[in-house]
């Protein structure tokens, strides 16, 4: 039996530490005592006392805290979806972007950015909303292409996903070339990171990530059985097509919401479930929630690094996660080679 009490406690502790780091670190040095006091007051729901510098309060409560929570949700969404897809496609290298959510969101964002909405105080919403809807539509297209009568074969999903993603990416690149003025904005978006500060992106993401992740968790056991292949899953009583469809819907909701507000952040959805499998085993009822917390911790920490490493400038967090990707794969490669010896 995989004893999971210690890993569970460890992960919550790690999350708490990551949150404290993320809220405590920034280009303005805020004394830790004040940070803790503001956090404590917030948890209790009381207003902070007036002797705490007003500016500090703004920084902590309207910049760092929402950003931290945004990273938690995005990390959980990406790692959770990645985990589900690794189960669904029976491929430990699957990631949440496999069937077009990221490329679709990218296209939506770039379209929105290059269309040049009349710059109004509300146009900032246009980008994430367009990205979100575009992601959903892209996955829907992949779905329809992959369907064979009433079944949804896994191979078709992957093939359709690759085909549609390639096309969408090409379209996006084409638009980028003609973007000229908005190029910087578009590139920053594509590199991943929070382009919007404050609580708005958090509230925007929340409903979809919540629904998506809860939905995925409900299908954790079925994901276990699906690992044996469609035939055996059917023979064990699972309605494979319905399960697969719903898992794709929930995963897409969370991924699309994540990408819409924080751009394309790679490797979280791939690395975290892959690593944690070693700790929790293959049971999705454990791997899935652990992946979500693991993804949250990883992304919050990556974000801290992104903010600190070239201070006062800030790197897009997608760069940090990508940097982690290389050593990860090399490590996997080494282990794989060792096995063959």
């Amino acid at each position, binding site marked *: 039996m995989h004893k999971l009490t210690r890993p569970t406690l460890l992960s919550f502790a790690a999350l708490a530490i990551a949150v404290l780091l993320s809220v405590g670190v920034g280009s303005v040095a805020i004394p830790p005592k004040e940070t803790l006091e503001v956090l404590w007051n917030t948890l209790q729901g009381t207003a902070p006392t007036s002797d705490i510098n007003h500016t500090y309060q703004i920084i902590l409560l309207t910049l760092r805290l929402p950003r931290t929570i945004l990273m938690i949700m995005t990390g959980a969404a990406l790692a959770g979806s990645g985990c589900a897809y690794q189960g669904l496609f029976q491929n430990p290298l699957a990631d949440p972007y496999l069937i077009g959510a990221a490329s679709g969101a990218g296209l939506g964002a770039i379209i929105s950015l290059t269309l040049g909405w009349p710059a109004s105080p509300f146009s900032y919403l246009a980008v994430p909303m367009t990205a979100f809807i575009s992601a959903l539509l892209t996955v829907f297209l992949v779905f329809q292409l992959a369907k064979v009568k009433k079944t949804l074969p896994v191979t078709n999903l992957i093939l359709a996903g690759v085909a549609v993603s390639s096309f969408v990416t090409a379209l996006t690149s084409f638009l980028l070339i003609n973007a000229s003025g908005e190029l910087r904005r578009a590139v920053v978006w594509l590199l991943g990171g929070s382009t919007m500060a404050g609580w708005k992106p958090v509230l925007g993401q929340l409903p979809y990530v919540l629904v998506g992740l809860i939905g995925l968790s409900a299908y954790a*056991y079925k994901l276990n059985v699906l*690992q044996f292949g469609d035939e055996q899953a059917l*023979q064990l009583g699972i309605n494979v097509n319905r399960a697969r469809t719903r898992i794709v819907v929930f995963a897409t909701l969370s991924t699309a919401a994540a990408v819409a507000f924080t751009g394309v952040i790679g490797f979280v959805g791939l690395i975290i479930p892959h690593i944690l499998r070693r700790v929790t085993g293959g049971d999705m009822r454990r791997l899935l929630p652990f992946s979500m917390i693991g993804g949250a911790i990883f992304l919050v920490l990556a974000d801290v690094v992104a903010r600190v490493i070239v201070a006062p400038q800030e790197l897009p967090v997608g760069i940090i996660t990508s940097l982690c990707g290389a050593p990860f794969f090399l490590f996997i490669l080494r282990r794989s080679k060792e096995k063959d010896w």
Partner: protein
Amino acid sequence: MQLRVSIDQAGYDQSATIRNIHFTLQEGQLLAVIGPNGSGKTTLIRAISQVLPYDEGQYHINGTNLKEASENSRAQLMAVVPQSTYVPPSFLVREVVLMGRTPYMNWNGKSSRVDEKFVQEAMEQTDVKKFEDQLCGELSAGERQRVILARALAQNTPVLLMDEPTSHLDLRYQIEFLELTRTLGINNGKTVLVAMHDLNLAARFGDLFLAMKNGSTDAFGSAQDVLLPEKLSEIYDLAVRVIKLPDGGSTVVIPQ
């Protein structure tokens, strides 16, 4: 329970792979399905378990039309042991066997005491209890096959469909398992269909025989009707001799 199979044609697409197969199995009977590779044995099992894309057959278990039943009800009526011995490596043996109880558990796979009882029993019957906390990735092909068998037993269905379930097993386990199956048939009334490669094992354990060639029925009936040298030679494209051993029981099939 009674299993009634009536297939005009069925397969993976319109060009049906199997055709013209009709039989009824009574409670407690063991049907050995024999025939060379590619004769359609696996396709037949897929057809009965309702996983074939193109199927114009009729299937009934004790009167229940399988085509109209839900996945869950079907899974409570029949369990299938596939040919493949692949098990996702990161599951524990115990977890895999417990999956046999899926049709009885809730959405989260929560097991009741009854479920646990069947799992323990199945693991003991297939002698995998000693591995119960090991990862399936660490087992040999034969051990994995026993785990899958255990899963099917845990499913506790009146009908069992098995596709070459003993191909990777040592002779001892082959005999043990088929004996177990036959016992379950006799004591629990399980109706069993086993596709087999080994004619001698088939001869030893089968009550009825279905010989398939090129996707359809070549012969169906008891040993006297099917295990005939001319028939077998024709089916397997090899001259064979069928010998009844002097001790009165066993029939043996050997090449000429």
